[in-house]
């Protein structure tokens, strides 16, 4: 059994090499790292300006983040950009004045910041997120997102393209009459994709978070990367086996990439929130990846049970699809 598996591994390794799979992964690694190092870490969102109308002088201000205005009209004019937040202390009850940005989450942050900025204790806290500097927070965030994208979109494509080649050559059918198990045929491919994805995840993490920080989050990141890698590889396997040609596969790939992965990114990056998102499995995988990068890995056993169950189910479906493909006519 071990000898046969070794030969399957050797063959799949050659197929991946000839398909320039590793070159593609290396290219992605360089591209992502360059972007993170030279672009993303310098990106900083401008702090929401806060305007205060306080004709009775109730509030003493010692922070640079709050600007006083003389009239209510000026307060409203300053907040017309839908970005700034205003506080009116002219009556007994303080009133928050804001024009909605259109996003509930963003409006919530603006309001929270406006109140916090008036509190002297808030001064300085905004520049620190947990124990991270702003740069490290950015690095963790974007590295998690890039890794998620690489594993869910690019890795998925990698296994599928390899399998499509074998399908087109017809050699899958030859394996039906060889003294080698169908499970071993699938395991061999999964092992290559898993090893490649874990190596990618480790390098991306260490390069972009730095060695000392990278090493501390690496175990949790590798667990999440392993789960995502296996799930996506098996989905890629099923699609490549089930669809008749690469054109149809490309269409499905587009659907998966755009309609499945994009909402997760939008929710993570822009503050868009939809009630149904919590039922989206990719959202949970995405948030678990982020949590792993911020040193707070998911601890819920149920999450891991569902992941293992999902991998098991997909493996069984892949096995069945492979058997069906072997039976097909030439």
């Amino acid at each position, binding site marked *: 059994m071990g000898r046969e598996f070794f*030969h399957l591994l*050797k063959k799949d390794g*050659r197929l991946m090499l000839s398909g320039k799979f590793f070159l593609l992964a290396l290219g992605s690694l360089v591209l992502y790292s360059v972007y993170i190092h030279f672009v993303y870490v310098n990106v900083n969102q401008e702090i929401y300006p806060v305007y205060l109308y306080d004709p009775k002088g109730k509030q003493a201000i010692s922070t640079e983040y709050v600007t006083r205005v003389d009239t209510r009209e000026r307060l409203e004019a300053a907040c017309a950009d839908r970005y700034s937040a205003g506080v009116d202390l002219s009556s007994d009850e303080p009133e928050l004045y804001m024009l909605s940005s259109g996003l509930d989450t963003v409006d919530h942050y603006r309001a929270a910041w406006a109140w916090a900025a008036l509190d002297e204790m808030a001064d300085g806290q905004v520049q620190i997120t947990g124990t991270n500097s702003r740069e490290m927070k950015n690095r963790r965030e974007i590295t998690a997102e890039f890794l998620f994208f690489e594993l869910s979109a690019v890795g998925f494509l990698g296994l599928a393209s390899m399998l499509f080649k074998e399908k087109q050559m017809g050699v899958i059918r030859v394996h*039906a*009459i*060889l003294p080698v198990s169908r499970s071993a045929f699938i395991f061999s491919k999964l092992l290559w994709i898993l090893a490649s994805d874990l190596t990618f995840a480790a390098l991306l993490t260490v390069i972009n978070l730095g060695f000392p920080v990278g090493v501390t989050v690496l175990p949790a990141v590798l667990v999440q990367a392993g789960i995502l890698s296996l799930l996506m590889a098996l989905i890629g396997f099923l699609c490549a086996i089930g669809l008749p040609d690469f054109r149809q596969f490309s269409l499905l790939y587009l659907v998966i990439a755009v309609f499945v992965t994009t909402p997760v990114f939008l929710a993570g990056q822009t503050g868009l929130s939809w009630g149904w998102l919590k039922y989206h499995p990719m959202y949970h995988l995405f948030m678990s990846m982020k949590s792993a990068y911020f040193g707070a890995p998911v601890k819920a056993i149920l999450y891991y049970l569902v992941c293992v169950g999902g991998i098991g189910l997909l493996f069984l479906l892949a096995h069945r699809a492979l058997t069906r493909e072997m039976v097909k006519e030439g």
Partner: protein
Amino acid sequence: MIEVRDLTFSYDKDKQALHGLTFTVKEGEIFGFLGPNGSGKSTTQKILTGILRGYGGRVSLFGEEISSAQGPAFFQKIGVLFEFPYLYANLSAVDNLGYFSSFYPGEQLRDVMELLDRLEFKRDFLKKPVSSYSKGMRQRVSMARALVSNPKVLFLDEPTSGLDPSGAVLFRRIIEEERQKGTTVFLTTHNMLDADLLCDRVAFISGGNIVALDTPQKLKEQNSDRHVVIDYMYRGKRTEATVEIEELEAGIPFPHDEIIRIHSQEPTLEDIFIQYTGRGLT
């Protein structure tokens, strides 16, 4: 070696592909399975090679029911040549054979180079990728793949398809050599010449039924009208006469100056197939 009793198979409820096939193949025999496309040839071969399950009836190979004997030991004893040359296009002939043979016990394997030489494979192409091979060369490598494990039963699906006439002759010679070694050959084809020249017995399959099963010679004899056509010259005039074979026992039964040709009028296997099924083999 192969025993099939009342074999039935359906791809779905309304589509029964095989309707109770019964036949046996003896050890060392070349058994031809002839039929047009869609007749059930490939389905039968897939069941015999353990690819297709869920059949009805009994099918045994090496004395064991196929459905309960599909471990590595079963696949180590069979060799299969598919109709199309399925090979890794990015690998060379040697690498392909090295890979496929790696799943069999070492002591069972034939020498790859010797085998390729036997199949008259061009040595210049040994290390070149299969993608640069002609169809005939790919077919040779596929045949080598089927033979490399020294199988006890060889399943051949259209073995001479895609070969030039000399390649077809070579393949027939190799199949004959395998038989002489004691290998049982199950030949699936709609090439009547291959069947006629190679097979000890042939079965005609049509619409999932075996409509005739015998040696090619007996099938031809049974379906011959026992007449010969003689083309001859008499007094400067060329004439054709049809006589019964029995009439020839005492010599040519009519006056003649020169016999030009004698046509036996023996039917081909295809003629017989049409007689049995009302349709051609292609």
